[in-house]
Structure formats: C-alpha cells, structure tokens
C-alpha cells in the first residue's frame, strides 16, 4: 500500500512538474525587447545607426565587409576610367549611397545627385519569365540622367495634390498624392505604358530577412482569408537570373527579386548603368543613341566587388530599439496588436540556419513584416503588375529602424514613393487588406494614436 502511495505521489509530481514546465515555455519576459536583430543587433541611435557591421565577424569577413562598404559608397564615373569607371551612359544615380543615404532611405525626387526615387516602366503583357514586359527603347526602368553629351531617357515630373483627412475627433491631417509625368522622352513611345515609382528603402537587416525560411513565409499566407480578419497575403514568385530559376520573391518593394546578389547586381545595372557578371546588358542596350551598347558587356564591376557589396548589405546590423520601458511606448505596443497592425507587420520571426554567419542563424528577430504581398487599396496602387503582384499589391514594409530614419536619412519619407512625410500620414494611406486596421486607428483617441506612433518610433 505504501509502495502504491509513493508511486501515485511520484506520478502526480511528474505530471505537475511537466505542466509547470510547459507553462514556462518561451516566456516573453526572458527576452530583451531591444534586440530587434537578435545577435545581429547594434546599439547606436546616432545618424550612423544603420551603418554598422554585425558583431563578432572574423578578420577576413570584416575586411570583405569593409571593401563592400567602400564600393557601396564609391561614386562611379564615365568610362573609360581606371577607378570606378563604367557609369551610364544612362543612369539614375552614381553610387549606392547617393540613394540609400547613410544606408537609410532616399529622397523622393528624381534626376539629381540627391534623388532616391526611380520609375519602373512596362507595357501590358509579360516577358517570357512572367515578369513585366519592357517598353521598346526604354526597358523596364526610366533612367533620368545621362553622362554629358547624351540624353536621359526622360525626365520625371512629380506633382502632389494635397487633401485633408479629418479624424472622427475633428483633428485634421493633410495627405499628399503624387502624380508622375514623363518629360522630354528621347524618342516617342510606341505603346501605352505603366509607371511605378520606387523609393530607395533602408537596408536594415536584409541578411536576416534573407535567412527566413521559405516555409515560414509560406505559413503566413492566409489564402481566401480563412480567419476573416480581412488579411490574406500572398507570395510573389519571380525569375532569378543568378540561378535561372523561378523562386519566391523577397526583395524589392513588390517582392520581385529572389536573391540579394540579383538585387545588388540589378541596382548597379539599372540604377547606375554598371554591368556585372550577373547583369551583363548595358541599361542603354537597344537605344539608337548608343549603337555600341551590348547585352553581353564585359563586366564593369569586378566580380569580387559585386560579391563584396552583396556581403556588405547582408552583414549590416539592425539598430536596437529605444525607449522600451516608456509607458506610452508600451501602451502603443498593445494598441499595435489590438488593431491588428501585427496581422501583416509580424513582430517576431525566427531565422533559419546560416552556416556562414552564426549571428544571423536561428535568430529571434523583430522585423515587423511578413514579406508577403497585400492589397493596399486604390490610393497606393501603381496599377502596374510585377510577376504575381497586382497593381494594388505591395510587400509589407519591415518597420525595424523606423524611428531612426529621420536621423539617418536627414529627412524621413515613408511608403513606396515617399509621399508620406510622417508615420501618421503613412498609416492613413493604408487601405485594402489594411482597411480595418486603418479604420481602427482613426477611431483611437489622439493620446492613443500618439502612443502608437511613439511605439513605432521606438523600433
């Protein structure tokens, strides 16, 4: 009898303890909220906050990062030149850093050294890979600058129309909507065309986003909105020239690029006119004023330098959060979840294994994105499909580092085209799948809205 008693008590203890243990799984309180990028987080809230390499790299990796940094900042000049030749002949800007200011975002202007906005262009239909169909003589991007003696493809005129938005509580905010007009095209357009503005985004945590397993991203899709929250989301499937395969899109504002290498190589080719082993065609290929331009150009950017820049971007650290113990920030964090901003801007994701960079491997990160495409409504639509992304769909923007954009960029502009001059304006442009959340935001009291914005500024 005594034995049975002992067995019963022991059994009960085991059950109780395992229950206790279960309730302690993944306790949120044991994590440091500030570590937005896990081990790849850096503590700096200055204007240089986005420019740091991840901690703990070996000397060789640090060196490669440094060389990538120098190339990222290098201003390209017209060929032939020994040092950083190969610019253009048509281009949008002369270096990566000119658009990605301090590795942050760009300015929504076109055609100058400080411009960070460019125009994609295409005609109706798709290319053989399902991507946007190029416009004859223009390709898929308007290069609005040219080296001296040549014509840019066209200039881009931006006009804004201001209109007031009034909250139920009577407070009013002015929102501006851009319209874009191409000026002085170097040849007439032979077909109707579609334009899509793209503002240079900040480069925060791209290595970590690259390491999120495809299955994780797929798991966020709620096809047909089964849970009825108004949010469905979908992945883009895109052609990747670096592998020759169709893969999931992760990068670009419409998730139209699969790999970081392709993203960097295409920026060099399309934005600066600099060819590489991935993108061998001059951006001016096929244009009457450049009969010598080929689509199999000798790389103007050395293979090693392209790889270094890719590594540089991949190994940029994520800035730590600030003000996490501020009561308003904490209240804002609760509101963020309550009004379901987190339905798309997912706060926490685990990265997959990364055998080269342990700092990125298996990290618990807070990017505030699901990397999915969502219908954002007519107000933000570019009406230009990009692979599976429709004219109203955009990829969820990661929100980490949001509060540091003002400092790093100089003046912060938000959304895909920089129309929003404040976080508040950016929220008010949300529609489509985000309509319910936007509606809920507008119904908050001014104090609650400020708390939410303060929370976003702490990211």
């Amino acid at each position, binding site marked *: 009898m005594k034995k049975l008693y002992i067995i019963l008590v022991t059994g009960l203890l085991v059950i109780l303890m395992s229950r206790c243990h279960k309730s302690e799984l993944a306790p949120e309180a044991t994590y440091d909220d500030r570590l937005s990028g896990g081990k790849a987080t850096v503590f*700096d*809230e*200055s*204007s*240089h906050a986005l420019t740091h390499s991840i901690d703990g790299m070996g000397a060789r990796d640090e060196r490669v990062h*440094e060389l990538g940094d*120098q190339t990222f900042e290098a*201003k390209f*000049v*017209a*060929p*032939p*030149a*020994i*040092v*950083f*030749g190969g*610019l253009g002949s048509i281009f949008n800007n*002369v270096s990566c850093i*000119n658009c990605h200011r*301090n590795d942050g975002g760009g300015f929504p202007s076109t055609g*100058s*050294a*400080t411009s960070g906005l460019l125009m994609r262009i295409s005609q109706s239909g798709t290319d053989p890979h399902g991507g946007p169909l190029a416009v004859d003589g223009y390709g898929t991007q308007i290069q609005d*600058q040219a*080296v*001296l*003696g040549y014509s840019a493809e066209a200039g881009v005129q931006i006009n804004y129309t201001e209109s007031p938005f009034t909250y139920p509580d009577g407070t009013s905010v002015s929102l501006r909507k851009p319209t874009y007009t191409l000026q002085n095209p170097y040849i007439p357009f032979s077909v109707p065309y579609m334009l899509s503005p793209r503002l240079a985004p900040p480069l925060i945590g791209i290595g970590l986003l690259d390491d999120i397993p495809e299955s994780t991203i797929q798991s966020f899709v709620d096809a047909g909105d089964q849970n009825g929250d108004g949010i469905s989301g979908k992945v883009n499937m895109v052609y990747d020239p670096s592998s020759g395969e169709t893969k999931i899109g992760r990068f670009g504002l419409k998730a139209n690029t699969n790999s970081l290498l392709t993203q960097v190589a295409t920026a060099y080719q399309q934005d600066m006119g600099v060819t590489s082993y991935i993108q061998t065609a001059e951006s001016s290929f096929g244009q009457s004023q450049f009969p010598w331009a080929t689509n199999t150009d000798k790389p103007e950017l050395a293979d090693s330098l392209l790889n270094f820049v890719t590594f540089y971007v991949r190994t940029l650290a994520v800035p730590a959060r600030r003000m996490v113990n501020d009561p308003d920030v904490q209240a804002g964090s609760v509101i963020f979840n309550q009004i379901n901003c987190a339905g798309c801007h997912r706060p926490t994701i685990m990265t997959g294994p990364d055998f080269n960079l342990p700092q990125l491997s298996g990290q618990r990160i807070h990017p505030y994105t699901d990397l999915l495409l969502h219908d954002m409504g007519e107000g933000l639509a570019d009406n230009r499909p990009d692979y599976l992304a429709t004219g109203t769909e955009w990829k969820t923007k990661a929100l980490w580092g949001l509060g540091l954009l003002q*400092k790093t*960029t*100089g*003046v912060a502009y938000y959304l895909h085209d920089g129309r929003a001059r404040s976080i508040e304006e950016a929220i008010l442009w949300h529609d489509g799948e985000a309509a319910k959340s936007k509606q809920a935001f507008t119904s908050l009291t001014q104090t609650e809205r400020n708390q939410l914005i303060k929370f976003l500024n702490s990211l």
Partner: protein
Amino acid sequence: METGSNTQTYDSLEADVIQDFTNNVVFFRYFTLLTAGSTLQNSVTNLTTTTSDANLAQAKLDWKNMRSDWEQSEGFLLGPVESNDYDPNTDTWPTDYVQMDSLLASSNPLTTDDVKNLPQSLRGYHPLEYMFWGKGGSKTAANITARQKQYMGSLISDIQVNNVQPLYNDWFLGTDNYSQQVLTAGKGSTEFSTRQALFLNIISAMSDICDEVGASKMFEPFVTRDSTITESPYSGNTLIDFKSNILGLQQVYMGLNGGKGIRNLVAAKNLDLDQKIQAQINAAVNSFAQITNRYEEAIFNQRTQVQNTMDQLATLHNLLDGDLTNFIKENIKD
C-alpha cells in the same frame, strides 16, 4: 586643471563641454573655413583676371589652406554637413576626367548654377585641384584655357555659395539652427533626446573618421600599391589631408581655444583612460611626421612608416569605439 574641481557638478561640466564643442570647435572651424573660402575665391578671381604663375601659386596655396580647414572639420562629421549633402557636394572622389574633358570641350554654360547641377564628381575641391595642378602636378599658367578659367571660378563659388555658407548658416543662423539642437541635447532637443545620444554621436563621428583614414584612405592605396587612388593625387596633399582629419578629431577631444573637450568629461572620472586616449591621439598625429615623402610615393618606399601610422590609427579607433564609447554609456546618464 579646472575639470578636477570639486565645485563643479558633472551635469554642469557636461553643459560646458557641449557649449565649448559648439562654439570653440564647430563655430571656429566652420567660420575659418568660410574665411578660407573667400580667400580662395579672391585668388581664383586674380588668377582668372591675370593668369600668371605667381597667381596660380597663390591659388594653390589658398586651396591647400582651405583643404586644411575642411579636413579638420571632418573630425565632427555630423548634422547638416551629412544631412544636407555638403560633404559629397564638395569632396566627392574620384574626379570624372572623361566627363570633365567633355564638359570643357563642349560649349555648355558654366555658371555657378550650371556647376551646381553637375554630377558631384564634377563639383568641389578635387576638380578644382585638377584645374590647378593637372595630372602629375605639371600645370603652368600658360596651360590654363578660357573654359578652364570659367570652370574654376564657378567651382569655387559653388563650393562657397552653395555649400560652405549654407553649412555655416544651418549651424548658426536663425533661431531653429543645428547648434540649438546640440546645445539643448537632453533638454528639449528634437535631434538628441539625451545628452548621452549627442556625445555618442560625436564620438562615433570621431571614431568613423579615424577608421576611414587608417583602414580605408591609407590602407587601400597601400595594399594595392596604387597611387591613382589616393585622396588628393594632383596636389600631393594627401598626407596633409589625413593628418588634418586626425587633428580635427583631436580638437574635439581636447577642446579648442581654451574651451573644454570630451577629455574633461573623461578626466573627471577616469584619469587613466583620459591619459591613454590623449597619448594615443598624440602618437597617431606624431607618426605622420615619419612619412617624409608624398603619400603617393610613400606607399612604395616608406611602407614601414605608413604601416606604423595605420597601426596607431587602428589602436586609436579601438579606444574610441570601445573604451570611450563605453565610458560615455556608463557615465552620461540622462
């Protein structure tokens, strides 16, 4: 030494350091830069009116003087100089010979406004340097063409009117200027919510320039043995540029013109650390004297001396990025 005084609170010491950084270092340097700019503007006017070798020599000297101020100001590369692009507008490298040649060969207008709208690689100090010295530094007054004169005049006035003057104005003119943001750090400044944030930004700027000189500007030509990628190759001013950067950093640390510097904050709590940083800055600055040739030559024939300076800068960078940054985080709590 007044910093050791027991009568001053640390809080008021912080305020003094911020004020002296603003007035004695930043204001002093940007004002001197502005003056050096108008001197250079005058000498370019003289050169283009009376194109003699003597006037060319004077313009070269004034260019070097202005560079000295500019490079020293890079010891505090934060605020408007970054956010309003005055740095890339005036100090972009490399210069674009191909486009410069086609610009000079063309009949495109070359007013200051035209130069303002040129790519950054055709604006600023280095195209002007190229106009004065030419490739190999062999230029004489007789080689200067009419188009080049026009370009020179517009280059210096673009530097001065569109960059140096606005940079000064952004810091010190009007009521909502950047110096107010600095002076009110942690006391209402929208740019710096705490004093700690301001000091960390100042130190990160010091650390960045130290790293840029040692690990990039000096290292690249050295390791690739390539004299075409040095900073000021036409004038041979490269080494002076480097040293000026470090002098600028030193002024921020030590204070300038009798004012207090970051060192006063450190010395008040950790005399050893202060001594260590001061000694290392001195070692780095003094090491430049051992490189006696132009940098373009030294990378071939004074490699030991160049390596020594890079080592000193690396040690200094680690001190600034590590010990000094940690000191600020631990001791400036607001």
